[in-house]
């Protein structure tokens, strides 16, 4: 039998229903399931078998639909997440377990995880952690750190999840059911059926000049609807995220500055795009520079940035030079880290429609309002003419703050007047999205004879790539944080962002602070060694306490949590030290155990800049409470946290709230989802908003502040002192609300002076983590045994969400320490760029420390970025503890670690 295109129909059973699709039989099954039979619960993250998001059951066996020819499914039985949750007892059970355990954060990996888990549960074997890991090892998750997923699969009980509770309650994610049932819609899932497809033509060289052939002729010959180049940008052909640094073109016009930079886009029917001959562009490769240390002499990437220095940062306090000269002990070293790719499982996707004189863009994003303003500038229209409708976002971690795919589809739809869609391939996503800045750091610390830090000097150079993106933020944040959460009276820290011909570095969980912590926390271990002090006690002794100034001279009287973090770890630390000693006596000589510790801190919100959030809420005439919540939930849980805060402030149940947004037409600006600011800043706005609405209701009902609010059958009932009465609601306003409140919160900060002195953040969160591991000295491999993470969260609004952030951050820290490094042009897929799999993340114990905070809502601080900061240095310190070798140039891959162990032996150590 031959399955032929065209006119061939492929028939199979999809979730119990016979379906048939009109498709070439060689097409990827994932493509056919999504595009022809509407099974959008089958996700595509790589088209290469590397991520497992496309996992379906084919006659009961899990396979990657992206590697299966559609014709191979002919006559067979296919089951997907949505079908399994609807029809299969294991599927239903797992959906509930995933909800209870918060095992879906962004949810993009959830279909692959649950489908794989159903196959395991059906097999009926005994369930152990190992068995679950083997069964789910083919699915990558970048958000959760996997531990909650393992727990969910192992949980055979069928308790319902908690859905109610205000501040402090572990309730399930209020937007979670869509994610565990297969209904969630991500960037590509919402593309209009009649949309044309857009593909981007990109530079094959790190730097090149280029010339187009006859584009009109090519367009007509290939049957395309449109070709876009720099000449077709009606507004400004540039974008960026920091005012004054908008330097990235939508389409390169003179030369390309990194491999993968866009020069043109083609728009048309997908089959015609597949058949399109080579695009008429001729390239001439130009000399390029990928190394920041050679940037001074390299060709300028931007004419106005001498020496290819984008910008610098500086913080100085006391006299660091003199303090280090007079120090009893000094530890110094050089450290480096590479490009880190965000590797969210959902590649960038966007679609756009022109609606009259407005453009509407649906996309995965972390910053709808910034996207709106950036697009308006590119299109040459007012921001009001642009509407951003964020879809569910399948992971962001900083890279989905910047514009990526949106300008292309917006320009095309604007011109064509019909919907246009684009979804990046994995290679495109990795080649062009922003990265964590590679760092080269020199640091020196000094103590007095007792081990008190007297001074520190830090000099960090950060490869910011071809364009600025969030580079200025990294340059300014790092010197403020590079001391770590320790009292450092004499301090000088310099940073510089350097341009090279690589993909732009931007925002990635921690904005440069994880890199500086790798240097600082390793030096702290070396110093403890010189002092012959316990490594935890050395840190504890130097930890900042309330009332002591930070390196910018800021003094907090409350909410300084680092000591509490170390205190919480102390018993675990002492246990681990005993266990390690015992293990190293008994085990085989080439397997050495070790334990490491590191601290970290992070200022929540933008640095010394206004960054308000606004939250709006209204009550309809029939007493429905609508919360316009624009703080985009990219998996971290802001939909749930902000609803919990709002419900608490208003005094109603979470279940009474109708969540609306995010959408720039209907939710006010809650700022961007970054800098660990949403729980703190948007949360504070939600609290003010809930309180304001409560005051209005109580005033209307003429009751005291202690009255209780109930919503019953379309009316509001107030009860006070045993009596209750209903409140008549006024007529609805133009927005449809009888009562409405809009409140903003902007954290108090002050600008920094020329020495970086001032109050850059209203709130700092701190953390300390401990890593236990085993090094195979013959192979240079590391087996993690356990991570213990103590976090000062102020107040945990929802402890399960806080724990989820910690576990996910730790997993990314593991990747940073042990395996991740993006090499431009070489690791543009998920089998050469490695992120941790389910087998690489050990059990994680989270300790939440709730010391409160005077600014945060109910005392809550941000947490998203803190989780990652101590992980890598804790692991590196544990490696040194285990085998003596210190890895200063990350990642600690087996070859590097083995080389370090060997050179130690040759040098007479060990």
């Amino acid at each position, binding site marked *: 039998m031959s399955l032929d295109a065209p006119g061939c129909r492929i028939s199979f059973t999809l979730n119990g229903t016979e379906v048939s699709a009109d498709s*070439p039989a060689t097409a990827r099954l994932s493509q056919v399931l999504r595009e022809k039979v509407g099974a959008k619960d089958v996700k595509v993250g790589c088209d290469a078998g590397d991520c497992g998001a496309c996992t379906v059951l084919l006659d009961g066996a899990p396979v990657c639909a992206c590697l299966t020819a559609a014709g191979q499914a002919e006559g067979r039985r296919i089951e997907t997440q949505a079908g399994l949750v609807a029809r299969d007892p294991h599927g239903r059970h797992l959906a509930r377990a995933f909800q209870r355990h918060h095992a879906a954060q962004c949810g993009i990996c959830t279909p692959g995880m649950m489908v794989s888990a159903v196959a395991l549960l059906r097999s009926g074997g005994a369930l152990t952690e190992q068995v679950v890991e083997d069964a789910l090892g083919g699915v990558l998750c970048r958000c959760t750190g996997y531990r909650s997923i393992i727990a969910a699969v192992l949980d055979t009980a069928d308790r319902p999840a908690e859905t109610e509770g205000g501040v402090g309650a572990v309730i399930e994610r209020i937007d979670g059911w869509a994610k565990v049932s297969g209904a969630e819609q991500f960037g590509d899932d919402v593309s209009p059926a009649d949309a044309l497809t857009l593909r981007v033509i990109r530079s094959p060289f790190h730097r090149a000049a280029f010339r187009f052939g006859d584009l009109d002729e090519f367009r007509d010959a290939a049957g395309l609807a449109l070709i876009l180049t720099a000449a077709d940008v009606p507004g400004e052909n540039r974008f960026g995220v920091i005012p004054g640094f908008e330097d990235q073109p939508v389409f390169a016009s003179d030369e390309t500055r990194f491999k993968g930079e866009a020069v043109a886009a083609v728009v048309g029917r997908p089959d015609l795009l597949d058949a399109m001959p080579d695009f008429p562009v001729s390239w001439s490769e130009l000399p390029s520079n990928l190394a920041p240390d050679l940037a001074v002499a390299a060709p300028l990437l931007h004419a106005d940035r001498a020496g290819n220095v984008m910008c610098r940062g500086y913080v100085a306090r006391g006299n660091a030079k003199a303090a280090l000269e007079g120090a009893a002990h000094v530890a110094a070293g050089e450290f480096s880290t590479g490009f880190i790719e965000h590797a969210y499982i959902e590649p960038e996707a966007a679609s756009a429609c022109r609606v009259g004189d407005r453009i509407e863009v649906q996309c995965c994003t972390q910053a709808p309002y910034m996207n709106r303003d950036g697009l308006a500038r590119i299109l040459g229209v007012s921001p009001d003419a642009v509407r951003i409708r964020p879809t569910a976002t399948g992971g962001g971690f900083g890279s989905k703050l910047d514009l990526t795919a949106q300008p292309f589809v917006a320009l095309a739809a604007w011109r064509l007047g019909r919907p246009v869609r684009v979804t990046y391939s994995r290679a495109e996503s990795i080649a062009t999205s922003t990265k964590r800045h590679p760092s080269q750091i020199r640091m020196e610390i000094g103590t007095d004879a007792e081990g008190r830090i007297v001074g520190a000097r830090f000099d960090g150079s950060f490869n910011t790539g071809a364009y600025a993106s969030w580079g200025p933020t990294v340059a300014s944040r790092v010197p403020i944080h590079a001391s770590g959460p320790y009292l450092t009276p004499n301090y000088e820290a310099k940073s510089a962002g350097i341009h090279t011909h690589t993909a732009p570095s931007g925002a990635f969980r921690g904005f440069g602070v994880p890199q500086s912590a790798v240097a600082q926390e390793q030096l702290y271990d070396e110093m403890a060694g010189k002092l012959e002090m316990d490594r935890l006690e050395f840190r504890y002794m130097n930890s900042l306490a309330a009332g002591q100034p930070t390196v910018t001279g800021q003094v907090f009287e409350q909410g300084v949590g680092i000591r509490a973090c170390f205190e919480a770890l102390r018993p675990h630390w002492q246990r681990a030290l005993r266990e390690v000693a015992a293990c190293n006596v008994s085990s085989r000589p080439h397997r050495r155990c070790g334990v490491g510790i590191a601290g970290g801190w992070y200022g929540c919100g933008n640095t010394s800049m206004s960054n308000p959030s606004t939250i709006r809420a209204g009550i309809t005439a029939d007493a429905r409470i609508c919360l316009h919540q624009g703080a985009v939930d990219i998996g971290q849980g802001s939909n749930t946290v902000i609803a919990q805060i709002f419900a608490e402030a208003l005094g109603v149940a979470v279940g009474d709230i109708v969540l609306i947004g995010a959408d720039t037409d209907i939710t006010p600006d809650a700022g961007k989802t970054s800098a660990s600011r949403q729980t703190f800043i948007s949360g504070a706005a939600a609290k003010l908003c809930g309180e304001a609405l409560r005051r209005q209701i109580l005033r209307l009902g003429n009751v005291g502040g202690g009255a209780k609010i109930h919503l019953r059958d379309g009316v509001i009932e107030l009860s006070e002192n045993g009596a209750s009465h209903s409140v008549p609601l006024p007529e609805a306003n133009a927005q449809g609300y009888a009562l409405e409140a809009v409140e903003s919160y902007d954290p108090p900060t002050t600008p920094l002076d020329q020495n970086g002195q001032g109050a850059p953040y209203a709130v700092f969160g701190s953390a300390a983590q401990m890593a236990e591991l085993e090094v195979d000295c013959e192979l240079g491999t590391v087996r993690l045994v356990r991570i213990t993470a103590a976090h000062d969260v102020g107040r945990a609004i929802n402890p399960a969400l806080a724990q989820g952030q910690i576990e996910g951050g730790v997993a990314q820290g593991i990747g940073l320490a042990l395996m991740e490094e993006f090499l431009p042009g070489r690791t543009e897929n998920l089998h050469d760029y490695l992120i941790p799999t389910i087998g690489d993340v050990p059990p994680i114990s989270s300790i939440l420390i709730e010391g409160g905070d005077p600014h945060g809502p109910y005392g809550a601080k941000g947490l998203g970025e803190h989780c990652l900061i101590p992980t890598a240095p804790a692991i590196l310190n544990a490696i040194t503890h285990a085998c003596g070798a210190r890895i200063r140039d990350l990642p600690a891959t087996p070859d590097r670690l083995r080389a370090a162990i060997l050179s130690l032996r040759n040098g007479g150590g060990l």
Partner: protein
Amino acid sequence: MLHRPQTLDAALALLSAGDAVILAGGTDIYPALRDRPPPAEMVDLSGITGLRGIGREGDSWRIGAATTWTEILHADLPPLFDGLKLAAREVGSVQIQNAGTVAGNICNASPAADGVPAFLALEAQIEVQGPGGTRCMAVEDFIRGPRMTRLDRSELVTAIYVPDSPGQGAFLKLGARKYLVISIAMVGAVVLAEGDRIAKARVAVGSCSPVACRLRDLETALAGISARDIAKAVSAAPLPELVPIGDVRATSHYRSDAARTLITRTLLQAMEARNVA
């Protein structure tokens, strides 16, 4: 166009007729497309029942070419095959093992194919059929170089034969993470032990040369030595067969060094006769 022949003859006829690409599990073909469309014409082997399954034929075991790694893992096989089973379990993930086939692994001829050192240690023979009839050759003859085999356009691999022998198989893979990882190096071995001594050993290493290779001189040196002395024998051996390159996964120096450790450990694993399954 996707052909789905039900018989071997039909498949051979299709291959002779044009320049169709052979498709088995698709786990090498589809990723290799990157962002390009699939080949215009493919012949899918997954519908041919005779190409699947494992059975005994005379003095040999016959493994159908389109047998998946999952089927290998669940097959009832003697300890000789423990190394092959361990290799099967290390191929990618459950998803990849459910679709990927043994012949696909061999025909793709990647230097990092996990199946190849395991089959080399088993002295496997590849059965090839084409318009000119059937021929059989050793795995090391079949794979000519990276991504190159002795297969003609109109031929296909029908089976892999493993001569039965009393040894114990073993396999170790080294990668930079737990699942879904391309080997930095891997070792397949079969050991016939007499008490604490190696009577006879076959050892093959992958990812350390353009094609995975048997270490015949080492095998000779191992004969008669005790488990205790394996490490010494391995470190003393010159191993000229290993000429690793450096790439994004590891330096060449590291590969040479780690390969020796892996060889020793794989041999010890075989001596300990651990049971898989």
